[in-house]
Each structure stands twice: as C-alpha cells, then as structure tokens.
C-alpha cells in the first residue's frame, strides 16, 4: 500500500514538474510574491540611480534568498537586481569563458570557494573596495573556518561569504530512541545504540537499520543516505577524519595513502545501505530521504535539518537529531572533522561596469542581519557562517539548542575543500572514481590509485610549481588550524 501510494505521489510530482515547466512564464511573478524581509541598515547615505546589478545563482532556493531583499535593496540603494538561475557547472564555465575574453555577464561573481584560485585573478580586491566605500564587512563576526579558507587569497580579502556550508550528521529518533531496537542493536553489536562517533559504528548502524524494520509508519526504511552523485563531498568528511590530506607538502597525492583508502572503503561499504539509486543522489535527494523519514542516518549540509523542521516539506518534524559527523580511529586516536564542503561566496569581477553598486550589494547580502534572516528561513538552503547568527535567540528557539551546539562543535573541526587552480578537474576525477567503486565497478584500491595518477597528470599539465604554490597556501593554513597528516600505522 505504502509502495503504490508513494509511486502515485512520485508520478504526481513528475506531472507537477511538467506542468510547472509548461507554466514557466508564470513562475517568476509567483515567486516575486514571497515574503520580503526588511532589515535596512541605519545611516546608509548612498543611493544609485537605478543601476542594474546582475547576479547568477545555481538553485531556486538561493534565488529565493536573493529575492528576499530585492525590494529593500532597490528602495535603500536604488539598485535593481537581475537574478538568474544557472546550473552550477554552467555558471563556472560561463564565468571562465567571460573572463578569458576580459568581460563578465554578472556584476557579482557567485562561486564556490574551492574555485577561488581560478576566480581570484579576475576579481578586484574586495577589502580595498569596501574600505574605499566605507563599508564594514564585520569580519570578526565570521567564523574563522570560513574567514580563513573562503574569503582570503594571497593575504587579501577577495570575497564575502554568502552560504557557510558544512556537513553534519542527522539521525532519525524513531530509529535511535526505540527501546526494542536499542536492545536488539546492543545484543548484535555489543555496544549501545546512540549517534555514532566513528565511521565503523556508522557503518554498523547503517547495516542494522537497513535490515531491521524501524519505521513507525510501516514504510520501507533504509540505513543511511549520502550523495553518491558527487561523492567527493561526502568522502571529504572521512578523508579529513582519517588523518590524511589531499597532498603532502611536496604536492604528492595522499589520496591513495593507507588513511585515504580506509576512508574510501567506508564510503563504498556504506553505499550498500543507501536507498536504491543513491548513485544518482545529490544534496536534494539526500535531504528528501531525511525529510520523508526514509533513512535512519545521514550526513548532509546543515540546512537539511532546517528542512526537516518545516511541516510543509517534512514528515519528521521534531524527530531528527543532529551531531558532528563521526571520526576515525587513527593509531589509537579518534580524529573527527566535518567537511566545509562547497559553500558560496560573492566577489567583484574586474570587468564589471558597476563595481561600486556591486560592492554595496555584496556587502548588503553579507550583513549579519541579512544572514540571520537567511538562516531563519528554511526555504533558503543557506547555512550559518556568522557567530551572531548562530547565537541568535530566535534561531535557537526555532531549531533548538542541540542544533546550535552541533553547528558550533562542527565548525571548530571544519575541513576545507581543495583549493587549486582547476580544482574542478581534480574533483571530477575523485567523484568519478568513488562513484565507480561505490557501484562495484572497481576496487577501492584501484580507484584511489587511479585518482592519484590523474591528480599527478593534472598537476603536471597545470604546472607543478604554480599548483604547489597554491597548495602551500592551503597546506600552511591547515597547519595553522592544527590539521596535519597523521600516517596510519
């Protein structure tokens, strides 16, 4: 019964999507009617004469966030915003093509921080622009993990954060707080059922809930859900927790080190306890699996928890718990890091015609009041990067003190993405090999050796010296943050 209902619902959603596409022309006006937030800054004495600022983003939930303040920005600054939604990879390609010809389609560059090395040569130093226009980005309020890794390049401020992405672990309380299940688990594995602290436990719990009925509504439950469409983001948590880094200090890949292979092995084994088709799951599908109550455990961006608390989207309001992602035992010590994967930042392209207005708009969107409004609204998909926003009373009241604590704990152990010129190609190689290993197409060892070999090829082609210089920046920043390679014995 459950199955056929779900299928009907699925077909309904598909038909709905088709109808929505057919009615595409009506969508923008409908979206324009979304709630407009107002947190206008006091004493802003600059207005522009109806200047248009073009921004592209990659998903409707980000466009929603931009639109939240569209009217206010027009009123306060006299700036009209043109907001476009473009697929993520297309946006990167479009920007790179524009910049190669010394032009830009967008006044504000919206990109992933791991692409900073590709974007930085085409951005104006934002710190200088902000000083010039007398705008305070309140960087002291930005958590160090994001400030250090996502906004600075060559010792200069070049971007402002927009979305403070990071992973955390989510678990379904129906599964974890059931006394019978707790007893069964204890009998089978010999330790207490609770949010896992290591990936070995995570794997065992995923296995347990895959084979043991746990859903209260009688539906088919699964062990875990992670995004195997681009598995490198989910792998990064494990890689960092395995004590490995992307490269050693001489730019030799550590991705096929004993640590990194152990991390990959865990990810690949967990794939067996995902819902069918998880190889095509991205962020959205994982979030849906959590919100529909399909999975007992999951790792996803922290916005997934906010979605689980939204009665319009979730069947499990109040039933999801959060914790820092698990760690790995390395030489007898538990290492635990959450990936600060992806994230979004705003920069000002050198080639834009309206850099002053663009700087004002980027600054506006990174203001603490605006960021707090973003993270309070479950429709934005934006994660916290400001201390004041995380500590906001309304935020704690809405989502609970446990969630706030998880975010705080998680961000003290954040591990950044790989920041190299052409990092996209390094990540594509990692995604592809992990995907193939997860689908059973090759062994984990072969996959990771292949990644190491491809990474070396990319490095040689891009110029080892240039890549080493970029990597050294990240390597040193990691060292300063206390993150170093711990060879597995």
């Amino acid at each position, binding site marked *: 019964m459950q199955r056929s209902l779900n299928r009907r619902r699925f077909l309904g959603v598909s038909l709905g999507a088709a109808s929505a596409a057919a009615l595409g022309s009506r969508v923008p006006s409908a979206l324009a009617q979304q709630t407009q937030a107002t947190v206008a800054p006091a004493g802003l004495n600059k207005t522009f004469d109806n200047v248009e600022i073009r921004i592209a983003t990659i998903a409707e939930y980000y466009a929603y966030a931009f639109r939240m303040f569209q009217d206010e920005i027009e009123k306060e600054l006299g700036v009209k915003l043109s907001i476009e939604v473009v697929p993520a990879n297309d946006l990167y390609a479009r920007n790179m093509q524009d910049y190669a010809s010394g032009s830009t389609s967008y006044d504000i560059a919206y990109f992933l921080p791991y692409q900073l090395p*590709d974007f930085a040569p085409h951005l104006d130093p934002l710190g200088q622009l902000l000083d010039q226009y007398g705008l305070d980005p309140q960087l002291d309020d930005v958590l160090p993990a994001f400030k250090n890794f996502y906004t600075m390049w060559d010792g200069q401020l070049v971007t402002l954060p927009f979305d403070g992405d990071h992973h955390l672990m989510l678990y379904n309380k129906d599964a974890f707080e059931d006394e019978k299940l707790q007893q069964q688990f204890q009998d089978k594995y010999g330790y207490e059922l609770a949010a896992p602290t290591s990936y070995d436990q995570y794997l065992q719990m995923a296995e347990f809930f895959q084979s043991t009925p746990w859903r209260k509504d009688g539906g088919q439950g699964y062990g875990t859900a992670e995004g195997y469409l681009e598995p490198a983001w989910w792998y990064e948590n494990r890689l960092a927790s395995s004590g490995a880094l992307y490269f050693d200090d001489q730019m030799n890949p550590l991705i096929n080190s004993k640590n990194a292979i152990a991390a990959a092995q865990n990810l690949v084994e967990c794939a067996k306890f995902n819902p069918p*088709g998880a190889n095509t799951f991205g962020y959205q599908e994982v979030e849906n699996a959590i919100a529909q109550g399909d999975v007992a455990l999951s790792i996803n961006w922290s916005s997934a928890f906010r979605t689980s608390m939204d009665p319009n989207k979730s069947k499990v309001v109040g039933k999801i718990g959060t914790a820092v992602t698990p760690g790995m035992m390395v030489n007898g010590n538990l290492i635990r890091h959450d990936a600060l994967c992806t994230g979004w930042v705003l920069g000002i392209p050198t080639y834009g015609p309206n850099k002053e207005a663009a700087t004002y708009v980027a600054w506006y969107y990174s203001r603490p009041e605006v960021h707090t409004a973003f993270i309070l609204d479950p429709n934005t998909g934006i994660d916290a990067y400001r201390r004041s926003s995380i500590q906001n009373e309304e935020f704690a009241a809405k989502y609970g003190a446990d969630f706030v604590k998880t975010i705080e704990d998680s961000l003290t152990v954040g591990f950044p993405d790989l920041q190299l010129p*052409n990092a996209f190609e390094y990540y594509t190689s990692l995604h592809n090999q992990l995907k193939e290993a997860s689908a059973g197409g090759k062994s984990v060892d072969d996959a990771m050796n292949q990644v190491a070999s491809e990474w070396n090829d990319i490095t040689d082609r891009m110029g080892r010296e240039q890549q080493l210089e970029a990597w050294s920046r990240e390597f040193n920043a990691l060292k300063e943050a206390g993150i170093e390679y711990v060879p597995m014995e």
Partner: protein
Amino acid sequence: MGQRSESVRLTAAEGRPSVWPSGQAYAKGKARRRRLTPFYFAGPAVIFVFVGSIFMALYALYISFFDYQLQRPGAPRFVGLKNYAEAFTDAKLWTSIWQTFTIAVPALALEIVFGLALAMLLNRSFRGRAIAISLIVTPVMVSSAAAGMAWRLLLEPRYGPVNDILSRLSGQPVQIGWLSSVEWARPAIVLTDVWHMTPFVMLLVLAGLGSISDDIYGAAKIDGASGWRLFVDITLPLLKPILVLVILLRGIDLVRIFDLIFIMTKGGPGTITKTVSYYIYENGLSFFRIGYASAMAWIVAIFFIIFSKFYLDYLRKESR
C-alpha cells in the same frame, strides 16, 4: 536616381532599355546574370556553412596545436603535435571510444531489427494504419533531451514505472538502479535510444518497402517462394540501399551520442557510460583544455571519415 531612371527607360516596342548599346551585349549581360544567379541564392547558405562549420573546424585545427588552458593566465603556447601525441596515448580516450561502441552497436542492431519488423508489420493495408504509424513515430518527435529526462523518471529505482511493472510481473519487489549500476547503465541508455529512434528506422524502411513492386513478389510466388524465402531473397536484397543509408545515418548519430548521456548518467556511474563525445566535451568545456579537446575532436573526426569511406567502398563493391 532620376538620371538612372531615365537611362533605363523601356520602349514598348522592344521590351528592353532604349539606351542599351547592342543586342549582343545585352545577351552577354543576361547570360552573366544567369550564371551568377545560383551564387546569389546559395551565397548566404555557403557563408553560413563556412563560418558555422568550416571556419570553426579549421579554427579547432589551429587551436589543436596550442596548449590552451582557459584557467591558466597568459597566452596559449604553441606545442606542435603534442596534443595529438597525448591523445594517442590517452587510455581514457580509447576507453571512451570503446564505450561508445558498446552503446552504439547494440542500439543500432536493435533499431534495425525492430524498425524492420515494425515496417513489415505496417506494410499492408488495414484499418487504422495511418493512426498506428502516427502513434508509433511519436517518440521521434520528442527531442533527445526530453526523451532522456522522461526515461530517467521511468527508470527511477524506487518509484519508477519500469521497476513497478517488473515487480508486478515477478511478484517480488524489484528496485534495480538502472542508471546507477555498473551492469545496467549502458543497457538503459541503449533502451532509451532504441525507444527514441526505432520509429525513424521504421519510417525509412517503410518507404523502401513501398518502392518494391508487387510484381516481383507475384513472380516469386509463381516460382513457389513464400514467407521467409520471400523476405530473405527479395525483400532484404531490395532493401539493401535503404539499410545502408540507415546504418550510415544512425551509425553516425550513435557514435556521437551525447545528449542522452548528459541527461541520464553524466558518463557514470564512474566513467562506465562516458562516450567519446562526452569525454571531448568534458575536456573542452568543463576542464577547459581547449587545445587538447580540439586535437581529440580532429582525431575522432578523421577516424570516422576513414571508417565511413571504407564502409561505403565495401558496400559499393558488394552491390556490384
């Protein structure tokens, strides 16, 4: 303007300009205009083809001699044949060519078999024939991208109708990850392409069947042939020119398959469905290795031109 109008005024008696120097010169001019007329008509198309295809191809050839990586600052570096040498030793390129054939060959074979069968079935008069043909050709009307998206939904593991039908038939839950499993991703692409393009093959074969005279069948029947022998000895040989055309058209289309891959699997899981077009696209427009992607595109183009030439020569010899 006034002066010119005056000089070319026509006289009613002669029907040509009164100021024309002589009848011979007029005839010459007319002949020249006639010679040039086709060029006026063809000109825009020729310019379009030149700029849109030939110039682009030549520019790609030019850029293939450069190390041109978009994200790397500075002008492209001339590297001679280095990109070509790299392509010849690039195992991933050859794997992608092999993977292209593992999709193209079964898809082409199935499309021909099903297309031929459908055409034979419809090559007779019956009530509702026109409607049946119209319904069967519907998939061809759909763009490849739309076909890919539709099949991605149909093949969805948990809620997709394909697994649902299989579950009902087998009496147990079937949750095949069609697009996410190493075993099924390629068959799923083949299935989608066969669904999409078989009607096209059927239409061509149907046209070919229509051109075979009933007299030939009549004569063969008098000689005692029937059923299978008619098909093998008359229908197939006479359809050969059409089938050669089908193999060539569909073959070319299949070896450059891209849209279904892009929509349905993005070359995955891993690199299992990464075809040569997708691999070149990825290098050129995702990794921005413009020079290298151009070199690979030229190698593949030359490879297929030579292959097509040998194929056509072989068929020509056969038909003799």
